């Protein structure tokens, strides 16, 4: 794994002031915001920019990051023996854990990189050892990506979380924990699943915080996902489109469902299968977009059939263009 140069990400010097960090972030955030940017890698860049900003705008995190960067530069603490790259702990690429401190806007961390989540996942546990300090544990945020099928039926997943903690002697060390979680059936994209008591530990006898998992749905080979709705292209033959037909399509929740293609259906016609999309309140629909597929004219018989059709059914689809053809 590469050590990330957050200063380079924001295009600023190591000694940049808070104001310079803020200005650089705002400028780049406008350039790479995925909703407006034309850049191909906008999403990745925005994630990197958010990550760099989250660390450099926070004094405590920035100090820790600078110390780590110095260590890497010296080839010492936190650095690998070869090439000076950042040395992650074993089992590095399993997942992430994110830290939420009061007043610090947290959950965007769910999109940050492994590097970020390793180094700043749990922060310095400040206050943990200080006498009478009492506070409920902070909430954590992470994201989980599941398939359409898993969203509908529910799924058990292992979620690997990693955090940097400071022990009683003040020594930082990595803690990896794996949560085995049953994601309930019927979750939809953007929904949060709360794991009560699996956030940060509480201080002074107060309860632990919660862990929030934001549900994301992975791209699917058949369905395109829009909110709770699913869209699928349904190829039909010209005969089926012209005369109407009953065809079978896969049902997202399992099995198949029979669909009536109306006569004289055009390409692009949208058929709605009510409440057969992703679950939710209200449930999503499954939309079928008709795509008329032409049989290939690659045999003598096929060519003859096309010619016979043309003779039997004189048809000029360009009539509205006002051009007389074949005159």
């Amino acid at each position, binding site marked *: 794994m590469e050590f990330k140069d957050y200063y380079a990400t924001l295009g600023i010097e190591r000694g940049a002031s808070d104001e310079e960090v803020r200005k650089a972030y705002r400028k780049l955030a406008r350039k790479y915001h995925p909703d407006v940017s034309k850049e191909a890698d906008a999403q990745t860049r925005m994630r990197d920019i958010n990550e760099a900003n989250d660390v450099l705008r926070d004094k405590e995190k920035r100090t820790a990051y600078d110390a780590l960067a110095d260590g890497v530069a010296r080839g010492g603490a936190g650095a690998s023996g070869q090439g000076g790259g950042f040395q992650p702990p074993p089992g590095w690429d399993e997942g992430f854990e994110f830290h939420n401190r009061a007043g610090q806007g947290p959950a965007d961390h769910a999109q940050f990189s492994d590097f970020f989540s390793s180094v700043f996942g749990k922060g310095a546990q400040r206050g943990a050892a200080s006498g009478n300090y009492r506070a409920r544990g902070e909430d954590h945020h992470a994201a989980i990506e599941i398939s359409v099928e898993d969203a509908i039926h529910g799924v058990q997943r292992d979620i690997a979380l990693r955090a940097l903690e400071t022990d009683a002697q003040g020594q930082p060390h990595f803690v990896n924990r794996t949560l085995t979680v049953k994601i309930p059936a019927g979750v939809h994209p953007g929904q949060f*699943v*709360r794991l009560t008591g699996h956030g940060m530990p509480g201080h002074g006898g107060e309860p632990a915080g919660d862990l929030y998992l934001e549900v994301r749905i992975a791209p699917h080979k058949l369905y395109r996902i829009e909110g709770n709705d699913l869209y699928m292209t349904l190829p039909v033959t010209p005969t089926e489109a012209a005369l109407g037909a009953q065809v079978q399509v896969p049902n997202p929740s399992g099995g198949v469902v029979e669909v009536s293609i109306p006569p004289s259906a055009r390409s692009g016609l949208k058929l709605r299968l009510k409440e057969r999309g992703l679950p939710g309140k209200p449930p999503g629909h499954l939309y079928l977009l008709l795509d008329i597929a032409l049989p290939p004219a690659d045999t003598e018989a096929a060519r003859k059939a096309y010619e016979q059709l043309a003779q039997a059914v004189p048809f000029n689809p360009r009539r509205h263009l006002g051009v007389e053809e074949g005159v």
Partner: protein
Amino acid sequence: MSNSYTRATVFVDADAICAISEDQPLVAQELAYACGVTLEWVAQLVEAGIVEVPAASGPPQAWCFGSGDLQSALEARRLERDFGVDLQAAALILDLQREVRRLKAALQVQSR
């Protein structure tokens, strides 16, 4: 920094797992905890219309929020923190952002 690490595997009890929904919403204090903010800030969100509660819901302690509200609250928090916008402006930005996403999705469907 030490490279030492420890591992633990935890089976999360079914009772501790809850998908945030209309049936199992967050109360105002839980939304505040999840965003790392105060209850007063949540009340400001309601006032700005970034999250909605029925008019007759009573005091903040009785308010309920869904996943969409949590998402909006987190986004508003980032806009406020990183861009220094006030919550009224954040509300407008979030509305525009939603509209852009809706139109882009509609365009995608049309262009197929």
